[in-house]
């Protein structure tokens, strides 16, 4: 019996293919693509301000709302944050990636790779939580500032408008630090992979031909590492755009995209506006990817 079934399928590879492919494709088309489509549909509905009910009829007024100055400000603030986080991640990741790619022995490399990916896989919420402990007013940063007699500097910094706040754990700087911490591994791995492919002879040649280390870095190493930098930045940029946990926990009243989406769908039940708002990060990411492709970032990947 089993043999006959087996032979039946063996002679009909298309049937087997359909049986294998159908469940995952059906799941993704219905659950995921279907959800994305309902999001798109929802964004063309609107919330009646008086009844608090979502009116199911085609309109662009929800999208027009996105261009309120306050909403534009949210987009601007979030994009600026995502860009600064990306830049900081590049600067912190580069030395480590370079060390891993060029100087680490095989054992050391395995160890470092594990050290970089382990935080990535361990709990996101808990990693965020750890910074609640660190940045708290009575936490380790303040303690350290007192220890080296620089607490006046910390106070001065916290008084800066825009960057500071009552304590580091409620400030734009706090949000920035936590984002950099959370997304850093996403930057290290691609840069390391790109640097791994730079032949050593190229760097030696550059030095032999009289380039200073700074020139070698700028004209040889950086252009060759660039695809990795862009690949990493796609992650850090996109993840920062869409996150609401960190701004919620470390922010004051100023909104970021994720937090705005959460608030609109939650407390005010305005799913159309939340859906339209989400189109923001999607469009920003598409533009970002197009620019990245223009720069030739994908050619070498």
């Amino acid at each position, binding site marked *: 019996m089993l*043999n006959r*079934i*087996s032979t039946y*399928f063996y002679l009909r590879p298309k049937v087997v*293919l359909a049986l*294998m*492919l159908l*469940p*995952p*494709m059906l*799941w*993704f088309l219905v*659950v995921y693509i279907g*959800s994305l489509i*309902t*999001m798109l*549909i*929802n964004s063309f509905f609107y919330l009646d301000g008086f009844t608090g009910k979502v009116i199911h009829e085609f309109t662009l007024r929800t999208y027009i709302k996105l261009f309120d100055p306050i909403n534009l400000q949210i987009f601007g603030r979030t994009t600026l944050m995502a860009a600064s986080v990306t830049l900081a991640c590049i600067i*912190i990741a580069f*030395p*480590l990636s370079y*060390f891993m790619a060029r*100087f680490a022995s095989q054992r050391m490399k395995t160890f470092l790779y594990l050290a970089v*990916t*382990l*935080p990535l*896989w*361990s*709990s*996101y*919420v*808990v*990693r965020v*939580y*750890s910074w609640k*402990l*660190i940045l*708290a007013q*009575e936490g*380790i940063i*303040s*303690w350290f500032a007192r220890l080296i007699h620089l607490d006046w500097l910390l106070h001065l910094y916290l008084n800066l408008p825009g960057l500071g706040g009552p304590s580091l754990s409620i400030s734009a700087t706090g949000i920035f630090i936590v984002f950099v*911490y959370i997304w850093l*591994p*996403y930057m290290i791995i691609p840069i390391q992979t790109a640097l791994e492919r730079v032949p*050593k002879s190229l760097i030696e040649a550059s*030095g032999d031909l009289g380039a200073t*280390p700074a020139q070698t870095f700028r004209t040889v190493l950086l252009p060759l590492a660039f695809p990795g930098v862009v690949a990493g930045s796609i*992650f850090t940029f*996109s*993840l920062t755009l869409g*996150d*609401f946990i960190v701004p919620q926990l470390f922010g004051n009243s100023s909104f970021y995209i994720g937090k705005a989406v*959460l608030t609109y*769908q939650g407390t005010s039940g305005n*799913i159309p506006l*939340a859906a339209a708002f989400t189109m923001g*990060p*999607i469009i920003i*990411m598409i533009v970002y990817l197009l620019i990245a492709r223009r720069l030739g970032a994908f050619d070498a990947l």
Partner: protein
Amino acid sequence: MPSKNSSRLSGERAAWPLKFGAAGAILFLHVPLWLIFLYAFTTEESAYTFPPPGLTLKWIPQALANPAMQSALYLSIRVAFLATITALILGTLAAAAVYRYDFFGKESVSFMLILPLALPGIVTGIAMRSAISLIHIPFSFWTIVIGHATFCVVVVYNNVLARFRRSSNSMIEASMDLGANSFQTFWHIVLPNIGTALLAGAILAFSLSFDEVIVTTFTAGNQQTLPIWIFSQMLKPRNRPITNVTAMLVVLITALPILLAQRIVAGSSDSEGGSK
């Protein structure tokens, strides 16, 4: 950008500023996790003073006995378990189809599977929230599981596909030549061959689901998974010592299996689960 990186490149040893920068990045990634372990033992109840005024073990039994924490943990485990099973089935099927056959749109399969992880979590979250609202699906245990399974598929898919690509087809052909039918071949040859890849994929999927908070916020209604419980505790701290201990527990529950998965994968030199 520090130019020190390129100094004395031809030598075998790294310049000390480079070592310093590398060590700094590693410490930056790890010290916060060590602090989680330290604070689980602090005697303090309502602040995060450093250094802790004293150390105690008394919060651990209290945290483990906390009913809210227990039910959140139980929910998270059930969700992660079902999401993992679903992801195992769907991911393996997709990987096998992509490996064995040529068909129209083959290149886009990987792309579609990775989308839920590659797009910001909020996109997946609000998309599912839209679907739930538009067709009036009630929030339930199952809406959480469906959301989680969707983004877990790709880690299983990546692991299994990498294994398929590494293994040769001759074993399967030999088995068939020797008279085994497809089912016997699957059971005796294919399954043992992809076994560790399945295990590694399952561990990664489990910890991905166990840990997820963004999509879950939109699909869970009033139910609290463990990460959502911790998140709510951070928003309105009621019971800091218990949160501290739970945080430590979560690090252990997610990190140890990952180390194990790395071991399994390293032992067979596969690629790991791709990006989170």
